């Protein structure tokens, strides 16, 4: 479904992504792991259009989306959540998700119809599936950190994506919250027939949940494969035990 081929991105002198490759098959739960600074968020930004690659391609459903702006990529069926809660602080929780649904329904520019009557069912169902129904009327900015992360995911779901990309969905969470979030992600994958790509640096989390794992180190793909493959790969063990040495 999604293929990233030999992608490069530099910021002035710093090579953030150095020829990474990634394959995501439809219906699977794929994870990208790597230590902090490995280039995971940069890679995601390259996929979803916030950044333009210096070299390489991003191909989605056989279409080259490398040079498209973010909003067009979203319309193609990719939705994304961000590492730092990237919500609409002054709007209510309900409105946060509704805006996303309206965008997907191509109703963002409707001028003379009360918004509160549109997309109500879809919005409520999404809020329920992430557990925020009881806080729908609260201002998004006033939510607790964990709830804001849930809202993050809810906003992305509003786009009815084929591929959902989650950037460090469990960042800053306690072990209980982490487990709950991973369960949520697995549930969403099943109930909404989503393909999910996420990144993490907590390996336990990843090995329990993902069906395919790509290991990223200093902007380069070390290996991509099933959890056992990756766990047993000598390259990976070297990388993580050897420290900052390039592999």
């Amino acid at each position, binding site marked *: 479904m999604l293929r990233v081929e030999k992608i490069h991105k530099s910021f002035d002198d710093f090579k953030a992504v150095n020829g990474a490759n990634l394959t995501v098959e439809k219906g699977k739960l794929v994870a990208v792991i790597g230590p902090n600074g490995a280039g995971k968020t940069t890679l995601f930004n390259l996929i979803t259009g916030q950044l333009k690659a210096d070299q390489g391609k991003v191909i989605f459903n056989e279409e080259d989306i490398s040079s498209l702006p*973010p909003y067009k990529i979203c319309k193609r069926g990719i939705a994304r959540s961000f590492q730092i809660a990237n919500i609409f*602080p002054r709007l209510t929780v309900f409105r946060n998700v509704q805006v996303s649904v309206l*965008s*997907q329904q191509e109703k963002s520019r409707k001028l003379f*119809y009360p918004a509160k009557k549109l997309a109500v069912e879809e919005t409520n169902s999404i809020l329920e599936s992430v557990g925020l129904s009881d806080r729908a009327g609260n201002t998004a900015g006033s939510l607790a950190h964990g709830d804001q992360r849930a809202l993050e995911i809810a906003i992305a779901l509003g786009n009815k994506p084929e591929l959902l990309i989650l950037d460090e969905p469990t960042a800053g969470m306690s072990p209980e919250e982490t487990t709950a979030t991973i369960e949520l992600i697995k549930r969403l994958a099943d109930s909404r027939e989503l393909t999910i790509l996420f990144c993490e640096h907590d390996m336990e989390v990843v090995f329990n949940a993902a069906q395919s794992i790509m290991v990223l180190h200093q902007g380069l793909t070390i290996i991509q494969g099933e959890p056992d493959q990756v766990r047993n790969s000598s390259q990976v063990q070297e990388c993580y035990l050897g420290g900052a040495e390039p592999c």
Partner: protein
Amino acid sequence: MFKGTFSLKSLILLGAIFFVLLILPSIIPRFYTYILAVIFVTALVAMSLNMVVGHGGLFQFHHGAFYGVGAYTVALMLTKTSLPIWVCFVAGPIMAALVGLLIGAFCVRLTRLYFGMLQISLGSLIWAIAFRWYSLTGGDDGMHGIPIPSIISSSKGAYYFALIILAICIMVIYLIFKSPFGATLQAIRDNPDRCEAIGVNVKRHQLIAIVIATFFAGIAGVLFVVVEGSVFPDLLFWVFSLEIFIMCLLGGWFTFAGPILGAVIMVSLRTFVGIYTEYWTLILGIILILLIFFLPEGVWGYVLEKFGSRHKEAIEKGSK
């Protein structure tokens, strides 16, 4: 379309206010009727600006340019051509929106401060041309004695004309505010990058908002000509644009009706302070400083917060 947009209580309140405004000219002196008409015009400009600033998050620093374009267009057409009145009146907002589209398309490529500074540059160009083209626009003196049809040129006539147009415009702006377009615009204000990520073409959306807002500014410009019978290059000058900005801030720019309140306060203060002292600008500066330090949400914003929190407390107490 309208059902469910307004609650019964607020409809009654609005109806009452409207009724009072309707009968006022018969009981108050002519001077106050004139001042109220000026307030109506100013309120419309402020509301139109707030559409892009408070609800859109754009640094529209030279909104007055569009107001002035609307006013000058109608003034020029009324004095130099013999086209029917209604054509001239409609041409004002259309011209303003066209200029808005042109300038907006230029500026929307940039963000925040650059947007604001580019807009001031382009708006000042318009001001400079109007200021110097003496033969066409009367330059520094402006244009006076513009032929307005007598039904609306009298003090009461202008008042009612402005009131009715203002009421219609506010209703339309409210509908837009409550529509998906308005909701998305506010989302763009809060987080434009996130909107891009959920599939919104942010630049196009902002541009449409600018065109709508400048259209209303143009309408306000037409009203200005009707109420004053003249037009001045000051309308196009950036200082005036910043004053409109202050009105929105004063009233509360995250609220819907805040700018109206801001316009009421500013025009009233300017008129009455002006009677006692020639240093109105000094007072305005002090008010602005007080606002920045103590009331950044504006007067109405502050009121809403106070009542909003009390309302919430009451609910919580009641449910225990």
